[in-house]
Structures are given as C-alpha cells and as structure tokens.
C-alpha cells in the first residue's frame, strides 16, 4: 500500500531530527521491544496490587468502571483491557483498527505531521499501540470514557498513537491518565493524538499526568474542529517528571467553533515543563481561550500560548497566572497574532507569590499559616471550566486535593 510505505519513508528520513523545543532525548538509550502482559478481566482490574491501584486512581482511572462508559488500558506496549458499554461509542486499540478498518486511514497521520521531529518519526516506526475512540453521529457519552497509558518496564520507550473522533452532533467526554508503576524510575513516553471534532459535536478531553522523576515525555497532538464544534482540552500535571515538552495545536476550521485549553501545572524540583497551546481561528465567530495556572516548587516551567486570528469576528483570550512558592522559575510566553481587521484578542500574564494579606485574612478566621496557604493555593488552582461534566470537575478537584502535600 502506497500511503503506508510513504509514511514509513518520511519518518525514516527524520529519525534523528531534534524537536524545535525542549531538551533533546537520545531515544537509542531506551528499549522498544514489545513487553507482553496478560489481558485483565474486570475482576483482575480490582485485584491489582494496592500501590498500583493507587497510582491508577490518582491518574483518574475508575477501576470498578462503574462511572465510565468505556475503558482502554495499555500497560507498556500491550493493551490489557479495552471495552465499551455504549454501542454508539467505539473504543479499540489502534493496531486493530489499522488492520480491520479502512476508514481509520482517513484519520491516521492526517493532522500531526509524521516528519515533524524524531518523536513523530518514532511513533510511526516503533508504534506499540494506542487507542481509537469514536462517538458515532448524535451519540452522547453517559459517563466519560477512560483511557490509561501505564509504564511498568524500566527504561522503556512507550510509543502510542491515539485517534479521537466526535462525529456530527455527538457529545464525548474522555478522561485519560498517564502513569507509571511505583517502582519505575526512567522511561520515555511518546504519544501522538489526533482529535476530530465534527459539526456541532462536543468533545472534552481531560488529561492527568502522573509520571516518575526520571520520565521523559513528548506528546504531539493536533485537533481539528468543524463548524459549531466545541473542544475542551484540560491538562493536569502535579507530579514530578524529568522533562515534558508539548505544544498541542487546535485548528478551528468551521464557523462558530470553540476551543478552550485549561492547564494546571505544579513544578517539582528537578522537573522541566515546556507546555503550551497554539490555536488557529480560521472562520468568523471562532472563539478560543487558553488558561494556565502554574505553581513552581523549585521546578522550571515554561508556559507558552499562541493565538492566531485569521478572520474578522473572532475572539481569543490567553491567561497565565503563576505562583512561585518554593523557588524555581516560571516563564510565561504569550503570543497574539491578528491577521485581519476585526479580530478581538487579548492576554494577561502574572507571576508572583501568595499575598501575605490573604494569608493574614484567613488566619484571622482561625486557620493556621499553613492551612491558610494551602487554602489559597487550592483556590488558585481551581478554575471553573464551563461545559465540563460535574463528575470530571470533581475528578480534577480530587487530584488537586490529593496532591496538596506535593504543592506545599
């Protein structure tokens, strides 16, 4: 098949091409061979070792599956669980999709460029697996679909490719957690994600990262939103990681399409985060918002944001607030690009510390200094996300609550 060979060829040419941003990773140092794992039945999920369960729950996984409409679980290179409770929402491993469904070729590598850098090349040449989640036209996920990418094998390069499709008029909510087993120290995660939000569809994608101190993470994702579509992209990373670099892009292709990026990042010592969002507003009536809350506890955080307005009557806003609690750096890099008259674009960025006045205020209501500080930090991190189901909002709040001690 011509198309497939061509992808491989393009990827091969950039095997060693460094990424535009972030420290370079020597991928040769990591193993890529398949790591077999047993498929887990429902009851096996709940029988996983206690400490492993804890890591998974922290990453947003509901092991009982009670409040989830579907589940995808990949351990290292192998899919260990995959099913769906709703007939109108498909969940399947991407390898199977590539073998069995011709239609997947209309989506595979259609948004992310396979020859962008060595990481996209690796995703084509060393693909392990990944998920395809597709909500059929007019369907609505009763509960969120959950997807988990889990690393267990020391020194592994996990390479996945995900495709998410919200067909016309559908409503799809996904929570995806990336995590590592309690003993794992070092590894690489390369993940391609391509999002297709069709006419009047609504997609929310909430990603919780729970990596390990020596993990290197290079996600590459692009979304395409058609007329009247809504794409909510939430990102939460409150645990240490060696280095993560990602710059997800959204193309608002249709009139009145909307996207919102919300990111919550807590930077631990020794961790480096270079994260951002880039949004192209290509039709009148498009709306975009990028909101970031960053806390540094000694980590290095670069928060980028880039809005490109190409048509009159678009509206876009970028907001980054950073708190430096215990050293480290926060660098906010907001960029606005208006290409025609009649665009409305703005940004605000602020980096600072907690105001003593706020701490004193809460202390005069009876809280100790530490309690007051954590109350303010929790407030700082809690952003209202319009359109997010209450259940996912609760999931985010729980993550924030649970990592209180990492924040202070």
């Amino acid at each position, binding site marked *: 098949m011509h198309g497939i060979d061509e992808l491989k060829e393009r990827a091969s040419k950039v095997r060693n091409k460094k990424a535009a941003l972030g420290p370079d990773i020597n991928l040769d140092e990591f193993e890529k061979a398949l790591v077999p794992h047993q498929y887990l039945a429902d009851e096996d999920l709940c029988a996983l070792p206690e400490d492993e369960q804890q890591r998974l729950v922290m990453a947003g996984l509901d092991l009982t599956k009670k409040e989830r409409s579907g589940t995808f679980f990949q351990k290292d290179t192998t899919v260990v669980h995959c099913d769906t409770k709703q007939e109108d929402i498909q969940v399947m491993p991407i390898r199977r999709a590539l073998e069995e469904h011709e239609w997947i070729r209309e989506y595979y590598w259609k948004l992310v460029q396979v020859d962008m850098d060595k990481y996209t090349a690796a995703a084509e040449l060393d693909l392990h697996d990944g998920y395809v989640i597709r909500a059929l036209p007019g369907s609505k996920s009763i509960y969120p679909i959950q997807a988990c990418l889990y690393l267990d094998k020391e020194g592994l390069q996990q390479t996945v490719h995900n495709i998410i499709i919200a067909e016309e008029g559908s409503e799809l909510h996904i929570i995806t957690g990336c995590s590592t087993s309690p003993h794992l120290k070092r590894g690489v995660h390369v993940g391609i994600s391509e999002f297709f939000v069709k006419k009047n569809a609504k997609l929310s994608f909430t990603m919780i990262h729970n990596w390990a101190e020596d993990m290197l993470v290079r996600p590459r994702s692009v979304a395409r939103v058609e007329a009247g579509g809504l794409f909510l992209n939430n990102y939460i990373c409150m645990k240490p990681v060696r280095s993560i670099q990602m710059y997800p892009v959204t193309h608002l292709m249709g009139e009145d399409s909307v996207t919102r990026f919300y990111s919550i990042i807590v930077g631990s010592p020794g961790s480096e985060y270079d994260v951002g969002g880039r949004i192209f507003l290509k039709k009148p009536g498009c709306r975009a918002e990028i909101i970031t809350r960053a806390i540094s506890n000694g980590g290095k955080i670069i928060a980028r944001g880039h809005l490109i307005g190409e048509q009159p009557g678009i509206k876009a806003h970028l907001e980054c607030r950073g708190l430096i609690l215990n050293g480290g750096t926060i660098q906010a890099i907001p960029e606005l690009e208006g290409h025609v008259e009649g665009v409305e674009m703005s940004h605000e960025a602020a980096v600072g510390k907690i*105001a003593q*006045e*706020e701490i*004193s*205020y*809460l*202390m*005069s*209501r*009876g*809280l*100790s*200094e530490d309690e*007051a500080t954590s*109350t*303010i930090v*929790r*407030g*700082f*991190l*809690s*952003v209202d996300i319009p359109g997010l189901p209450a259940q996912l909002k609760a999931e985010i709040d729980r993550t924030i609550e649970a990592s209180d001690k990492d924040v202070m």
Partner: protein
Amino acid sequence: MLLIEDLKVEVGDKVILTRIDLEIGMGETHMLFGPNGSGKTSLLMTIMGYPQYKVTKGKIFFKGVDITDLPINERAGLGIGISYQRPPTINGLKIRQMIQICAGDEAEVEDLARRVNFVDFLERDVNAGFSGGEIKRSELLQLMAQAPDLMLFDEPESGVDLENIALVGKTIASLLQKDGDPLEGEQKSKMQLKRERTKMGLIITHTGYILDYVTADKGQVLYDGKLSCISNPREILTCVGESGYEECVRCMA
C-alpha cells in the same frame, strides 16, 4: 476583657500609634472616632495581630492572656474577630467555604446567609467584584459564623445604602447581644440583658449612624496616633460635628 497598656506601634520606620491605653470590659461596646489617617484601622489590625504593625512598647491582654506576641490565628482562637474595611479578594475560594472555615466546619451556612441577604453569593469567590455594601455584609456573615467574643468593626456602615444600614445595624446589635436572645421567649429587663452580656465590641465609625441601632458604653477619639478623649459617643459626635476634631480633642481633654 481587652486591656491595652501604653502601646506604641510602628509600620516600617513610622510611628503610627503612641501611648494607647484602652480597656474594654466584659459586655462593653466602644465607639472609635477619629479623622482619616489618624490610626483607627491600625489599632484594630494591631489588636488582631497583623505582623506589619510592630508593637515597640506596651502590652495587649485579652481574657488575662498577654497576646502582644501571639500570631493572628491564636488570637482568633482566643475569641477575637474583625470585620474589615477593605478585605482582600481570594480567587477560587467560595463564600460558602469561607463561612465553613469561620465556623470551624459545622455551620448552617444557608441559615446564616439568609440573615444578611447573602444566599445568592455563596458560590461566588470571596470578595471578588463585591460592591462596597456587599463586602460589609460578607464580613458580617463571616463574623456571625465565627462568633468571637471581642468583635472589631472597621467602618461597618460606610458605603451601605439606607435600606441595608438597618440590616447591618441590627446584625451588629445581635452579634453584640444588644437585643437579647430572640429565641428565648421571655422579655428581659435592660439591666438584666446588660448583666448577662459577654460580647465586646470596638466599632470604628465616622458618621455614627450605627448608634441608632447599637448602644455604646463609651466613645473614644483617636487623634494623631493618640487616644485623646473618652466620653459619651453622642456627645463626641455632636462636638466633632460642631467644631471639628482638633477643637473637640482640645476642649474635652
């Protein structure tokens, strides 16, 4: 009981208060008058324990405990509370959560809020975009939940419209046990009420409107960083109204 002895307070290198002596007995309410910038807010913040107001001389006792060097929250724990003139905004913290913090969790939040017309604000961030009058009601609501024994009110009625001023006045009166316990059916005599009263208040006011709702035992005038006279609060108001603070402080001294 609050007892302040020969207090001197500095902010940065600037002396803001000097030779302050003040005694508020059990069940007493005092009014605090004084021109803009005379140090009224500073005195309240010093009693509450704000670290930027450095006590360089003198002592503060509350309930017999020397609190001069205690942190703010320990003073709150002993029963001191304040309604601020200009409290800060706390993003992401809802009024509902704040009330629970004040009450130490088990609060009938809705019931309390209803009493100051504040139910609609429970899901708003603390003080975010509140109007002047709304801030006052929010502060009173927090004090209601906290129920301290000594309450410091910093201009509780300024910026409050005519309709709400009655609400604010009556709420303060009730906080300070001026109206008896409405739940106890029997009517008590004024003397009896006064004897049983334990709550103490120190209220800053420019206008004295609050006196229509809250009777005060004493009035104090802070002038140029010093407490310059103690008298009947109505008399002080009249005097200041007729001849200004400077004249008033001189004639009454």
